[in-house]
């Protein structure tokens, strides 16, 4: 197990390094002077030269890249002060340290992602199980039909509709907002409830269909039939035998969906006007603020790789045949 974790982490580091390199060098193909960005409106050539030196832009590209990468591990010193260990550089535009601005925004994105994930897994797997249990009945048809229709909705279409009904017209809920979990978990959950539900609706549908069809497949397996023939309780067979088997393909799909989940969080941020790392990414890429874009990319990649490792661990837990090492 430990060996597996170490190997995966090393792999993750390699991939992050490559993504960083790719992003960095592609950005330098733009015929643009980054020093001009942080100079503002009235810029003299001397000013630009000073800024260039401060930001280290006068060095060769490879040296700049090396500085950036070592900064992540060891920290860096800027004219504006020391940037401690996971240092993703300093914004050309605002002069803030990138790590700090990401940390400002990330709790929101994390809350959206995790909250949405939990809700759609519960709803999706639950309704899928129900549909498989009551296969062929009206409940099954309702769930299957609704899931196909709902999966065709988009966050940016469903979001305003839900807002319109719950907030603008009836006033039952307030406009979604982010209040830190550490301050008050209840207001945190209430503030994000609408975004979670909207985000979960889109993802739920797919998992409903998946869990229904894999469950039906599993119920036709021979070991399940044998268990039934032995006279085991229906419920026991359903959950202990069939459900466990049906989880394997679902976890596989979940692993592939993680990046979609993050982008779902980005769309949700925009739909409900919340400031997470998605908005940071868009703003920085529009102003071509390289360090911020790099930082967000690397951070996003890291986040997805981390979740992937977690999914792999879950895999081993569900299916004992999977030996991790």
């Amino acid at each position, binding site marked *: 197990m430990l060996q597996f974790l170490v190997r995966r982490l090393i792999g993750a580091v390699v991939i992050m390094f490559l993504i960083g390199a790719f992003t960095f060098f592609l950005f330098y193909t733009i*015929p643009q002077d980054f020093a001009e960005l942080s100079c503002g409106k009235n810029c003299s050539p001397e000013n630009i030269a000073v800024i260039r030196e401060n930001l280290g832009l006068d060095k060769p590209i490879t040296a700049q890249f090396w500085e950036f990468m070592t900064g992540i591990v060891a920290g860096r010193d800027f004219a504006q002060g020391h940037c401690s260990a996971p240092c993703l550089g300093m914004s050309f535009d605002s002069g803030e340290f990138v790590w700090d601005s990401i940390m400002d925004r990330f709790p929101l994105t994390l809350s959206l992602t995790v909250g949405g994930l939990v809700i759609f897994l519960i709803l999706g797997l639950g309704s899928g199980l129900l549909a498989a249990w009551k296969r062929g009945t009206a409940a099954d048809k309702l769930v299957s039909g609704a899931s196909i229709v709902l999966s065709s909705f988009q966050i940016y279409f469903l979001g305003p509709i839900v807002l*319109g009904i719950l907030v603008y017209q009836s006033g039952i809920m307030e406009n979604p907002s982010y209040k830190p979990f550490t301050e008050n978990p209840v207001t945190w959950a209430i503030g994000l409830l609408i975004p979670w539900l909207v985000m979960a609706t889109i993802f739920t549908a797919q998992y409903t269909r998946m869990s229904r069809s894999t469950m039906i497949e599993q119920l036709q397996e021979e070991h399940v039939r044998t268990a039934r023939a032995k006279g085991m309780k229906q419920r026991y067979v359903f959950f202990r035998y069939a459900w466990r088997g049906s989880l394997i393909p679902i976890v596989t799909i979940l692993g592939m969906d993680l990046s979609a989940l993050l982008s779902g969080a*980005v769309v949700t941020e925009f739909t409900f006007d919340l400031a997470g790392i998605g908005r940071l990414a868009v703003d*920085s890429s529009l102003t071509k603020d390289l360090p911020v874009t790099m930082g967000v990319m690397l951070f996003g990649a890291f986040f997805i790789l981390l979740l992937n490792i977690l999914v792999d661990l879950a895999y081993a837990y569900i299916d004992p045949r999977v030996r991790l090492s």
Partner: protein
Amino acid sequence: MTSPIDIEGSGTSAAADDAPDRVKAVETKSHEGRSPGQLMWLRFKRDRTGVVSACVVILYFLVSALAPLIAKLYGKDPYTLYAQEPEYPFLLDDFAMPTGSFGGMSGDFWFGVEPKLGRDVFTMLLYGMRTSLYMAVVVTLLCVVTGVIIGMVSGFFGGRVDYWLGRITDFFLAFPQQLFFIAFMPVVTAMFVSPQDETPTYLRAVAITLVMWFLGWMGLARLVRSSVLTLREREFVEAAKVSGASPWRIVRKEILPNIVTPILVQATYILPSTILSIAFLSYIGVGFVEPTPDWGRMFAIGADVYEQDPMFMFFPGVALVVFVLSFNLLGDSVRDAFDPKTGR
């Protein structure tokens, strides 16, 4: 899904009367022989959902292809600010919201009027769909071709080639996709025009296509690779090899026809998701910009004015839902028709 035999075996009461005829019919039919394509077509035709959604999808493509013609007959275009035209003096009220109910729907403006600017929603949607559909088709084709080539090469040659192509695929899969799109749209655009200049619309389209293509082929490459790996060991491929067929011939005549099915099914999933990605980019403001009519940007406008004029978003939204829905259903039906074993 039902197989042809099932259909012929149904209706047991009738079977007793004309049993000998039926046997004869089955015999003559089996002599005819059908290609897998014909069988698939027969199965597909029997699937009512599939046929209906295919019709809807074709309708969308027709409407997009004929958008200029329809707009001409209808007499409007997506760029004119009709609120400023003397013919329509009361299009927008004092708050720049459409006068009249349902977002200003009328005989002149079928789907209503855009708040603030007073453009025609119907033609905006037509042209928006047109851009999205065209681009999605191009991106899908590029992704399919790239994925098939890379998957084929790594599956067929194996060994070191396979290893490295596999690592490259893994690398691209590790990118956070939408963040990548967001980050690289300006970069790719800047490769063609200097950042100070206005970017022409077609260059934006090219940039979007490139970015989507770049991260769109991996799934297909993996799929093709694994299918080729299993096919490579099959007897008919061995036989072809033994009888001296060239690798190119084996790929073309033995392997490719066998993987058309999964490729096609995969393509029906790539296309709508590409449309959604393009819409996503425009929605958050890094894709198409004013005044290009675009599906995704209509949602951005709609979200802005949703409190005052919820109707603006209605038609683009419903059109998108119907499109994605029918495409998904079509994909499922095509899959079922190709491979009747995977029942829903």
